């Protein structure tokens, strides 16, 4: 029951942030919501199923550019429409990519996903007629549940209605993913991670379920991508770059990829730590590289692993 209390408290705290008058921290929470959604998906693929993708950022980019295209080119300003299109686009791309990638495991899977991510990056970068090239594509401010909030300036919009919309979406995503993880598919995926060969012998359709996990992860990634680009107002090719995928995995490891809430904790710590470090030095990548190395060597189960140990002790 302690867990439920902690969760409720955390949710209340997060909901209260915009009301506390610290606008800056409220704006930092926005990428947290976006990455949380995307990482819930990556955690299904990596934490639950055991497939390490170095190309998950591909789907964030898909979501981001779907939002941009809808808002700026097609003048469709509804966030719901953007999310819907992003999800459809993610499925359309994830089906062939996933079909190909899940035929391989471990290193090959990592390399293939990295390659596909960079393939998409190249496409976004080179075909500037379609995508705006390295300048990216602007993302128009979307309406939320039909309401435009035109009277609010950008910051008020982001810290107000958009904040709570993102929070709600994040909660919805978590609930849906909780269902999936605790479903028969979730158990089959864990069996695949534990021992894929044995899983086959007890009748688990390994390749097919890995494929499902891939597509589900892609959908969550794209939804996260949409949330990510609205605050900045820009979708750029770097969204798909492989180092962005690397950062996603970093966040997951930091939080603890064996746990359900690992992704959220990882995203939170990463974003706030990055903010703090960047204010002190421009060489934040070095610091983060060192942090990652330390986590890999000393805290392989991530921060949730540390907390879980406390719980038992």
């Amino acid at each position: 029951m302690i867990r439920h209390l902690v969760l409720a408290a955390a949710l209340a705290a997060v909901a209260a942030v915009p009301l506390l008058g610290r606008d800056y921290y409220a704006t930092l929470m926005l990428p947290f919501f976006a990455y949380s959604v995307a990482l819930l998906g990556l955690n299904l693929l990596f934490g639950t199923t055991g497939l390490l993708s170095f190309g998950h950022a591909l789907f964030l980019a898909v979501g981001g550019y779907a939002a941009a295209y809808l808002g700026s080119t097609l003048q469709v300003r509804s966030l719901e429409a953007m999310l819907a299109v992003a999800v459809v686009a993610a499925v359309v791309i994830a089906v062939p990519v996933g079909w190909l990638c899940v035929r391989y495991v471990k290193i090959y899977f990592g390399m293939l996903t990295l390659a596909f991510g960079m393939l998409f990056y190249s496409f976004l970068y080179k075909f500037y007629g379609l995508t705006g090239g390295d300048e990216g594509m602007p993302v128009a401010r979307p309406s939320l549940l039909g309401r435009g909030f035109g009277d609010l300036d950008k910051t008020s919009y982001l810290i107000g209605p958009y904040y709570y919309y993102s929070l709600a979406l994040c909660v919805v995503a978590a609930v849906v993913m909780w269902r999936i993880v605790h479903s028969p598919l979730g158990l089959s995926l864990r069996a695949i991670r534990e021992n894929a060969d044995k899983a086959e012998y007890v009748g688990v359709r390994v390749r097919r379920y890995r494929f499902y996990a891939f597509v589900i992860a892609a959908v969550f990634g794209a939804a996260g991508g949409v949330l990510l680009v609205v605050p900045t107002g820009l979708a750029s090719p770097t969204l798909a770059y492989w180092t962005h995928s690397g950062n996603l995995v970093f966040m997951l490891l930091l939080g603890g990829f064996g746990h359900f809430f690992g992704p959220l904790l990882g995203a939170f710590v990463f974003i706030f730590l990055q903010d703090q470090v960047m204010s002190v030095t421009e060489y934040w990548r070095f610091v983060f590289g060192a942090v990652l190395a330390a986590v890999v060597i000393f805290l392989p189960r991530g921060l949730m692993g540390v907390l879980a140990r406390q719980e038992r002790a």
Partner: protein
Amino acid sequence: MTQVLNLLLGGVFHAAALFLVAAGLQLVFGVQKILNLACGSFYALGAYAGITAVQTALAAGVPAPLFLLVLIGAGLTLGLLGPPIERLLRTIYDRDEAFQLLLTFALVLMLEDVIRFVWGAAPYQLGGVYLVYGQVRLGTVTIPVYNFVVIGAGLAIAAAMGVLLTRTRFGGIVRAAAENRGMAEALGVDMARISTRVFTLGLVLGTVGGALVIPAGAAVNEMGIELIVEAFAVVVIGGLGSMRGAFVGALIVGVLKAVAIAVYPEAEMLAIYVIVIGVLLFRPAGLFARATA
């Protein structure tokens, strides 16, 4: 006709650097079973250090034609980084591959900022010193002799690697360790020493590769992380762990890239990925699949 030749030579030139980086990748993968994401970062380090070394040497009065030796020397000197980095990676040899990839990714991040710290963010160039070897005219195009030198160096190093691996005791041990590490250890091989040497060799291949190709271009912060994708393409096409595969794969990728840029610039990387996907569909282990224990 000469345009085609120019194109091919450009592709082979790039392939030489790719081969060196990929060879380093294959060596480390073969023995330590780690896919080193930082191989591109070593390449970048070699490029930056090479430029600095040559500039310093020229300022100190070293005659221009010797700049090639200075470049190679810079690459070799960076080998000093091998043992400490290998020690770091050694902590996770037996862990899940995910951790290994992430640790090398941590290296990528750190080295990126090291380069930015030491050399700044602006493109860094050597100037025209490579022209000291002169140029060759083929029809309407002029090609610096230096490019042939690099191609020659790539071939020489490839041949040397071949001899090293097949005809020396060290090479035999390396191949044995790659085939079956436990067995090699049981037979008395000091895996720690071998791992350090192999890793350093792999690192040096990357740094020398970067140093050699930089004179004609400019070193930029992203060059390391950009190269990794091509290096992976080489390794997938050629087959993980295979030196011959690195050679052939590098040639294919290098030439293909050059052709693609000339024909349809937008499609340069796409062409490479199409090949990668094609290889994975029909010969998943690569063209020179090696049997692993």
